[in-house]
């Protein structure tokens, strides 16, 4: 399995340095990848992994250093050059054009032509179907990508990378949005590609994944390589310490919960998505004060719409939602906020922040209109600033000041900013939608601790996450969502990964054959 350690490197990066204003994102990084090797990169948020890959892919010009392929120095000034050299990349954020079809997304940039002008879609579609089939994926090349679930979008990304006959395949956090089952499936694909002689660079924050799939693990901290490990010779704690530079508690101790009366009652609600299709059907559950109720599910199974209904961004067209006994089915976000609902949205940059506004304004985004931040129609800038400075200190938001635009913050700090805003005050219910998506272990630890602390003060917490581990770690009870329904509610302490994973993937506990029936039956 393991490739010859002394076989010559297919790709080598030597002394790569990349500086951004105020940050040295890569500081003399060197890396060697052999054909038939899966090389994992590990590092905290902002460690410089993506930057390094962007340098390799021609998206960022390095300030120093060189790249060699098969021993030859090569120049990569643009993605075009990289593709020419046989380097393909699955990016950390989807690089798919939602309005274009699967086929168009895949062949974009490398279009088969007929009559010199027209894109030959029939040839491409056939090839895509064939390629998909070889991985066991049934792909409809004509579907607009925007209509696919994230899991399928990720598969399209992988097909897109492979379609170009690459030699080097870079995958930047490809599993962040996948279910365990999907991750397994992707790992199968990677192993096959490895066997076919691809050199694969794999980036992930999930230590056990890295340990499972990688042949070599390189850890980067603050732009520098701090160590390299063989999976056999290391473990999660070791890797985490290497990444963060200190000991990390990988699982926060959730302690005992002491649930009281019911806080949120959701009763038989039905919700439509933006296009008017009903995607939440007859969902019923309750969240008690002082407990964390987790909703597990593959992204795109109606969680967004469910959260929308609970937080007032959407209307449930049937059913009722009660908060502390009051009917809030038709309440708007303002009213809910007043009633003590805090909400950490799944898409933090779209909903949670106004990126061009200073931190201070973002911290009062939903409290700007009442004392102490405003008197009548007049904002009290001093109070806002004082409040902001206090919150920044309390939640350890790393920023030069409270007045810089929030777009200058790192992702983890942006999330802490939102947490600082939503967790404060007289909160009775917290809705946490994907609260740690894309964050590193340190930030995750911080946010998990805060959530448990709030639970212990008697707040009801509704946690929605595609991250199965997160749900398992934190929840007192777990509802599994599948195709718009909560198919089962389990006890958080006794549920197993496999059990929940299977429910997420199939909506049932039975084997694959029945799964087929469920799928075709709906």
């Amino acid at each position: 399995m393991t490739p010859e350690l002394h076989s010559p490197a297919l790709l080598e990066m030597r002394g790569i340095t990349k500086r951004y204003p105020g940050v040295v994102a890569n500081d003399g990084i060197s890396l060697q990848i052999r054909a038939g090797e899966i090389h994992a990169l590990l590092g905290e948020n902002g460690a410089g992994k993506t930057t390094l890959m962007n340098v390799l892919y021609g998206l960022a010009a390095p300030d120093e250093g060189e790249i060699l392929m098969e021993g030859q120095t090569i120049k990569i000034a643009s993605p075009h050059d990289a593709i020419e050299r046989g380097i393909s990349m699955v990016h950390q954020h989807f690089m798919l054009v939602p309005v274009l079809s699967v086929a168009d997304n895949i062949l974009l940039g490398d279009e088969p032509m007929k009559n010199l002008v027209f894109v030959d879609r029939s040839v491409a579609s056939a090839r895509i179907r064939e390629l998909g089939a070889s991985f066991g994926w049934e792909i409809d090349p004509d579907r607009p990508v925007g209509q696919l679930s994230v899991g399928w979008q990720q598969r399209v990304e992988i097909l897109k990378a492979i379609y170009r006959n690459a030699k080097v395949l870079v995958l930047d956090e490809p599993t962040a949005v996948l279910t365990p089952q999907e991750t397994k499936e992707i790992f199968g694909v990677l192993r096959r590609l490895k066997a076919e002689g691809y050199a694969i660079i794999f980036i992930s924050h999930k230590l056990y994944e890295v340990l499972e799939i990688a042949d070599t693990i390189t850890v980067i901290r603050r732009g520098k390589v701090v160590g390299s490990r063989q999976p056999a010779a290391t473990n999660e704690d070791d890797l985490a310490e290497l990444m963060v530079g200190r000991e990390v508690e990988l699982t926060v101790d959730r302690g005992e919960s002491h649930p009281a009366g019911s806080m949120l009652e959701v009763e038989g609600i039905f919700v439509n998505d933006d296009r008017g299709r009903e995607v939440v059907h007859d969902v019923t559950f309750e969240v008690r004060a002082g407990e964390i109720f987790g909703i597990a599910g593959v992204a795109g199974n109606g969680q967004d719409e469910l959260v929308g209904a609970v937080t007032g961004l959407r209307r449930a067209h049937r059913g009722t939602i009660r908060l502390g006994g009051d009917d809030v089915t038709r309440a708007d976000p303002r009213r809910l906020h007043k009633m003590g609902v805090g909400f950490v949205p799944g898409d933090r940059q779209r909903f949670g922040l106004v990126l061009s506004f200073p931190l201070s304004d973002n911290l009062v985004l939903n409290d700007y209109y009442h004392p102490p931040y405003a008197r009548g129609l007049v904002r009290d800038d001093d109070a806002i600033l004082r409040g902001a400075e206090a919150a920044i200190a309390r939640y350890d938001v790393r920023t030069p000041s409270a007045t810089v635009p929030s777009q200058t913050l790192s992702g983890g700090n942006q999330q802490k900013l939102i947490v600082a805003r939503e967790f404060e005050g007289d909160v009775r219910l917290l809705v946490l939608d994907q609260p740690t998506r894309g964050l590193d272990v340190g930030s995750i630890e911080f946010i998990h601790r805060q959530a448990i602390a709030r639970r212990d003060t008697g707040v009801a917490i509704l946690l929605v996450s595609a991250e199965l581990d997160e749900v398992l770690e934190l929840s007192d009870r777990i509802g599994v969502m599948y195709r718009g329904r909560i198919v089962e509610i389990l006890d958080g302490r006794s549920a197993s990964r496999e059990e929940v994973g299977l429910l997420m993937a199939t909506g049932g506990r039975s084997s694959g054959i029945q799964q087929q029936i469920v799928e075709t039956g709906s």
Partner: protein
Amino acid sequence: MTAQTRVLAAWQRGRAVALVPALSIAVALLIGAMIMILSSPLVSGEFNPTLPVTAYQAMLSGAFGSFDGVVRTLVNATPLVLAGLAVGIGFKAGLFNIGAQGQFLIGALTAAAAGLALNEASPFVAIPLALLAGMLGGLLWGFVPGALKAYTGAHEVVVTIMLNYVALAVLSWAISGPLRGQNVTFARTDDLVAASLPIFLGRDGHIGLLIAAVSVPLASWLLYRSTIGFEIRTTGANPDAARYAGMHPRNLIIFTMSLCGLLAGLAGASQLLGEVGYMTASFSTTVGFDAIAVALLGRAHPVGILFGALLFGAMQAGSGNMQILAGLPVQMVGVLQATILLVLTAEVVIRRIFRVQASGPELVELASVSASYGGKGTG
């Protein structure tokens, strides 16, 4: 902090803000000078390298050379400030109000209508009511595209362009029909007597000037100190976040467009009541379009808009002298305005030429303008 360091700090801040615009205007005037010199054979039949000197001197003396000239500059700037705010505040909410022109006309019309109805009344009644009527007229003309955008998604750019033309029709209908004067030889109203704005400064400094002057700090206050302004800016920068934060982007869009209309309507009312004194069916103006340039020149900030309006107002005030003394066609003013805007826009180039450091992330101010034209629309 001692007084001295405070003055120094203020000077440095002022320098940081004003240096690049000042350099830009200088460069633009140089470019304009080149155009004048190159075209001088067409102006005077011979090559005349001193034409720009004559022209700029004439312009300056017209705009600032006398007390009356200065007042004229201020009077010209008055409707530009108000209409500029009507465009600029729209920008802040992510709305591109090309309709200031129509709102201006309707505001002038409704002010005229009210003024005529109150011609016998005391000025203390007539003036406020006529101004109010102008604001309400403009408000209506802003409300319509706002409401259509909020509830049907109709793009405000299209609707406001169309409403500009509709305004002309309404104006002509009203003036040649119900509002036509008694003893007039063509389609115009009678003179507005009671509602005409008193002159308090020089030859033609009417009190509309004060209204414009007050509107700048008011707009600043509204945008940056009030909670509504915060909502407006949030809606403009990120409508999804606004909804999330419990604001009501639809209502805000309607509110902001109405407010913009109100301001442009007030501009029309003030110009009509303060400068013209009667309304004609052909009441012609370019204020609404100049306002777009002024708002962009001022980066959609009220204080910037004030300066932009003063610049345009001064150029207008000086343009008469430029035509008389340099014999240059009036269109040269447009060429100069475009050049100034161009050089200010390409300020990176100016910074590079003169090695001036950027003072901070100030471009953020406008970032949402053209963005909101496109995919970032509100739902």
